[in-house]
Structure formats: C-alpha cells, structure tokens
C-alpha cells in the first residue's frame, strides 16, 4: 500500500513537473529515430516472454510490433524494454519508452492521476479460481470455508475479500510471495483453491505436475481490462497506437488474415475491406501514416484473432478460450470502431 502511495506521489510529481508534450512530438521522434521503444513485462506467459532465440513474443509484444508495422511498414523496428510492475509508469512518463504494453489494468486512477492515456483494451482479464478436480466443485459459489492460495500484496487479495463478503462466505487465505510458490502450495495441498488473474491461472496450471488434475472455474470476480498505454498530451501518438489495435480487431471481424490479406487486397470489392486496407476512404492520412499502414499490420503481425490464438489461445501451450475476448459478434466484447 505504501509503495502504491509512493508510486502515485512520484507519478503526480512527474505529471506536474514535466512539460506537456507537443502533439505529434512522439510520432515525429519515433519516425526520426527509426524504431518504437516499447515497454513490456520482464516475463508473463503468453503476453511477453523471450523465446529460445531471444526474441520477445506474446500478445502484448504483438501490439508493439503492430505499431511498428503501422509507422515503419516493418514490424521488427521495435526495441523492447523489459519493465517491472513498479517502474513501468515512470519509464513511460520520463520518456524512456514510447509506449507501454505490459498487462496494465485500465482504471480511473491510472487514467486520470498518472498523466497517462490508455489506448484501448487488448485483453479483457479478470480474477478467477483454479481448483483441484478431485474437490468436485463446479462453481465459485460452492467455495464456502475453502483454503485459498494467493499472492500477497496484490489487488487480487482485495477482490477476493470483497467477493466472499458479498456472498456471505468464509475463507482462509494462505499467502505466498511469488506465483511459483503459490503453485507449489496448491500442488502440495496447502489450499483447495488458487486465485489469480485468469490469464495467469492457465499458465500456473501448466506448472503443475499433472495439469489435468486441476480446472479453472468459470466465474470471474473482477474486471481487469489490459491495454497499451501512452503519455498524456500527445494525441497523434495515442491515435496511432489505438488504431493499430483497432485495425487488428477490425481485420478479424472482416476475416482478413495475414495469409489472405494479399489476395483480399487485390480482389476485394467489399468497401469495408477496401477502407480497412487503405484502398479507399481516409487511408493513412488522418494518422499521418502511409496508406498501407493497416495492410502492414495485418500482413506482418496478423489480425487480433491470429495473435490471440498464437500467443495465448489454442495454438499456444496456454490454451485459453476466447471467452470475453471473442469478437462482439461471437459472444465476446472485443469491439472496435469502424475504419471509415
């Protein structure tokens, strides 16, 4: 808690002392230096992690790559700064990075007090529960009196307390310092339930000796919309990041993928797809980018669905279902304003 106050104080200080960035300054600076400096997590399975070859991969990483593709037509023109949760906002405020794509929850406080702007939501997360299958529990409502493993000092702890109080249930919290320890505790039977953000529960489940012995319950007890963040006061850059993400979501909605984008671009008569690929309409002009900005994103990074499946979905070891992150037309809430 203390740390949080310190953070908020330092952030406020930053917001008040730093000169307001000129609109467009970041985009121009990025274009001048030739790459996007992007802050990512030092390691979060499926969102940002270095692979065997030392390349950063993940859903958050793909947002950075999409922005690079939009600005430079080359998704590889991005440099990653691995950041811890504590230093992420300072790195952005101080200009060390151009954008932050690090599983950051969009909240009122962060949006207003920190001098930051959230550009969108690339993953709707929420706190969930993982239980031993042998327990025979099918819903979180049946967890009265359960022993629950949890990481200390996180908002998950507060959400948990709220949820159990509002449902009139009791629980016993068993706190651990790291997620590795909490998994070991869960495995050793110290607790019946492990709680964390759902996206992380799937990763924690793989760490079990026998992942099939545990299951993730359907209930989600908190809202954690995660998205890319930029500095306040630079609308041009905000829009570039925001619409890079929207382009990915729109592409999925229209069924344009990295595989068929060339063909669609040549043959499509659909005015929506033509606008998406910069063949008609406002093209890249509004964003001060080249007309093929969205084509480059789709071609090099893929649409949102592709990025999701590749990094956290069925094409990855995590096998997270789309759930809330399905398109609005398919039962989820991923929705992007139209490109027109």
């Amino acid at each position: 808690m203390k740390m949080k106050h310190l953070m908020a104080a330092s952030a406020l200080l930053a917001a008040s002392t730093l000169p307001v960035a000129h609109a467009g300054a970041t985009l121009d600076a990025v274009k001048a230096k030739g790459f996007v400096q992007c802050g990512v997590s030092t390691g979060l399975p499926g969102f940002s992690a270095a692979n065997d070859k030392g390349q950063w991969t993940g859903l958050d990483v793909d947002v950075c790559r999409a922005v690079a593709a939009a600005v430079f037509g080359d998704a590889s023109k991005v440099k990653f700064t691995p950041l811890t949760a504590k230093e992420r906002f300072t790195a952005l405020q101080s200009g060390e990075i151009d954008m932050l794509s690090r599983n950051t929850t969009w909240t009122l406080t962060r949006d207003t007090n920190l001098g930051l702007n959230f550009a969108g939501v690339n993953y709707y997360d929420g706190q969930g529960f993982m239980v031993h299958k042998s327990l025979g529990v099918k819903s979180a409502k049946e967890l009265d009196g359960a022993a629950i493993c949890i990481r200390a000092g996180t908002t998950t702890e507060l959400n948990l307390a709220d949820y159990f109080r509002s449902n009139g249930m009791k629980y016993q919290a068993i706190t651990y310092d790291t997620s590795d320890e909490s998994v070991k505790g869960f495995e050793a039977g110290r607790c019946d339930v492990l709680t964390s953000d759902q996206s992380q529960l799937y990763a924690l489940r793989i760490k079990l000796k026998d992942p099939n012995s545990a299951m993730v319950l359907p209930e989600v007890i908190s809202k954690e919309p995660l998205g890319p963040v930029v500095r306040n006061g630079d609308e041009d850059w905000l829009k570039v990041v925001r619409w890079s993400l929207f382009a990915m979501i729109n592409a999925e909605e229209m069924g344009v993928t990295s595989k068929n984008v060339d063909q669609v671009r040549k043959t499509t008569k659909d005015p929506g797809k033509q606008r998406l690929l910069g063949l008609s309409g406002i093209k890249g002009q509004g964003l001060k980018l080249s007309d093929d900005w969205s084509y480059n994103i789709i071609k090099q990074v893929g649409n949102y669905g592709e990025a999701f499946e590749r990094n956290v979905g069925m094409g990855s070891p995590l096998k997270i279902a789309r759930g809330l992150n399905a398109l609005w037309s398919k039962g989820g809430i991923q929705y992007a304003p139209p490109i027109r």
Partner: protein
Amino acid sequence: MSESSVQQEYAPGTHPDWDPPVTEVGVIGWLRENLFSNWWNSLLTLLGIYLAYLIFVPLIDWAVVHADWSGDTRDACTSGGACWVFVKVRLGQFLYGFYPADQVWRVNLTGALFALLILWLTLPRIPYKRVAGVLGLVVFPVVAYFLLHGGSFGLSEVETTKWGGLTLTLVLAVVGIVAAFPLGILLALGRRSEMPIVRALSVAYIELWRGVPLITVLFMSSVMLPLFLPEGVNFDKLLRALIGIILFQASYIAEVVRGGLQAIPKGQYEAADALGLNYGKKMILIILPQALKLVIPGIVNTFNELFKDTTLVLIIGLLDLLAIIKAALEDPNWLGYSIEGYVFAGAVFWIFCFGMSRYSQALERKLHTGHKR
C-alpha cells in the same frame, strides 16, 4: 647377549617390532577413532549416513540418473527427472542475455582477457604484477567497454538493454568491486582523518549509504531519478544501477577497511611519522599494506555479498543471470522447470563465490608474515 635380562613387557599392540593391529591404523583405525569411538558417536554416524542416503540418493536420481539431457523442446523431457534440456536450450541466453548471436565473440574475448588478467595477477609464478595491475585497472576497462558496447572501431553498437545473463552479472560485480574498493579506502581514511570537515563528510556519507537498503538505492536510481531529469534526458539504466551499487558498496568497504586501520598499533603510525614520511607515504607504504592484509576476509566477504546482491537488479528490469532465468521460466513453452533453472543459477553463483573465497585464503597465506597468533 644377556640371558639374565628380563623380558621387556609391552602393552598389547605397542611392541616396536610388530605392526600395529589393523584395527588401530589405516582406514579402519581412522574410522574407529573418528566415527565409531563410542556408542553414541557410532549411533550419530549411522544416523548421518542414513540422512545422507535419504538426501543424496533421490537427488542424484533426479539430477543425473533420470535426467534428460538431449533434445530441443519440453517434449524431450520424459524420464521424470531433471529436464536439463531447458538449461541447454537457453544456455546462450543465460550467459549472454540478448546480445546478438553473431557478436557474442566480443563477450567471449572480453571474458578471456579478464580471465588472463586474473590468472596473471593471482598465479605467483608469473612476474610483472604491477604491469598486470595497471593493465587490469586502466587499460582493461576501456578495452572492455569498447568491446562490449561497440559503436566504434568498426564494431556495431550493442545497447546495454541487450546485455544480460551472466555477462551482466559479471559486469555489475566486477565494475562494482573495482570502483567501490578505492572509493571505500578513501572514505575509511577520511573517517579517521583529523580534518573535521573531511571526517564529518565521510561519516555522513557512510552512515547515509549504510542506512538504506540496496534495493531502495536501485529503485531510486531507476524510478525516481528519471523524474528529476528533464524529459528526453535519459541516461542508461545500467549506468544508473552501477553508480548506485558503487556508491552503496563503497560505504561497506570503508567500514571494513576502517576496522583494519584501527587494528594497526599506534607505534606504526608514530614510527612512520618519526621517519619523516608525509601522510600519503605513511599510508601507502606503512599503514595500508598492513591494514588491508588484516581485513582480507572482510573485504572478500563484502565482494562476495556484492556479487550475490547484483541479483537485486531484477527489480529494475535488468536481466542479470537470475532475472533472465526467471524470464525464461515465463516462456509458455517452458513453464514449470523452475527447479532446474534455480539449481543452475545456484551452481553458477556458488562456483564464482567459492573461487573468490579460495583465492582470498591463498592470498592470506601468501601475505602471512608471522604476525598471526
């Protein structure tokens, strides 16, 4: 030949012409004397053997017998023991971080130069230690900087954000040690100085830096410092961390060295004064050689701690050996091999720390000039 002489009596087993009984010498004798001298020692020995059996048999079974060594993916790990494939696949990253693969020779060359210098300095047989000292303290840092960082002499630039793994750990530790040591000596002398302002400043410095945890220093350097600089003015995160570590460690070295200075008898100072030596000569020729020799264990202890403390940089997102292993554990393809990763990290740290402590013991023996009680 005196028939009348009385037959000399010997206690059993003590006759000078006979071999001692087999139960008193050799392996069996040693065992009897050290492990089975009486019934409770025998009991403790057996208990110890049983405990060792309980610990080491499963450990060796896990780490060697049932371990997987070959392959490139987690599918290769089927035997149920340690999955060293994980460490093998990631070894390049653990050693060099994200240093470009085609430039890794630069790190290797730097490491080789460093190893040569260390050998030169530590092996007693090789002469010209002074040359090695100058090379190590003056020439090597410059060469190492240009080799590792590049950007000139036709070498491509490799930003410090790409440094990582063992390379980064060693850079932090070596630079920290080499820079903090002289600063610490100066502070120790300052604290014992007769000039009030120098003394007060030294005391204030030492107490300030000793009073804060290293993690706070690193956090300040990484999170707070950039806020006080104008926007767009950033200096390297690694450099910030290094400065923090140096300033922090210098205060600890200072106190260790001060302990040595206090242990030198007053007569030595007075003798130096009587010889007409000025302050610098007195310290360099008489006092410091004796004082530093006395505190070798303390200094090496501090260095050892510093080496391990470098892992704290993971809270500011610098990927040193431990942090890069932790990062690798978050790769969805390698989830769940934390034990292998941490065992590897522990082994590497142990090798370096053990090496340092052996060297310090050798140094103590070599510099032992008969004052030891």
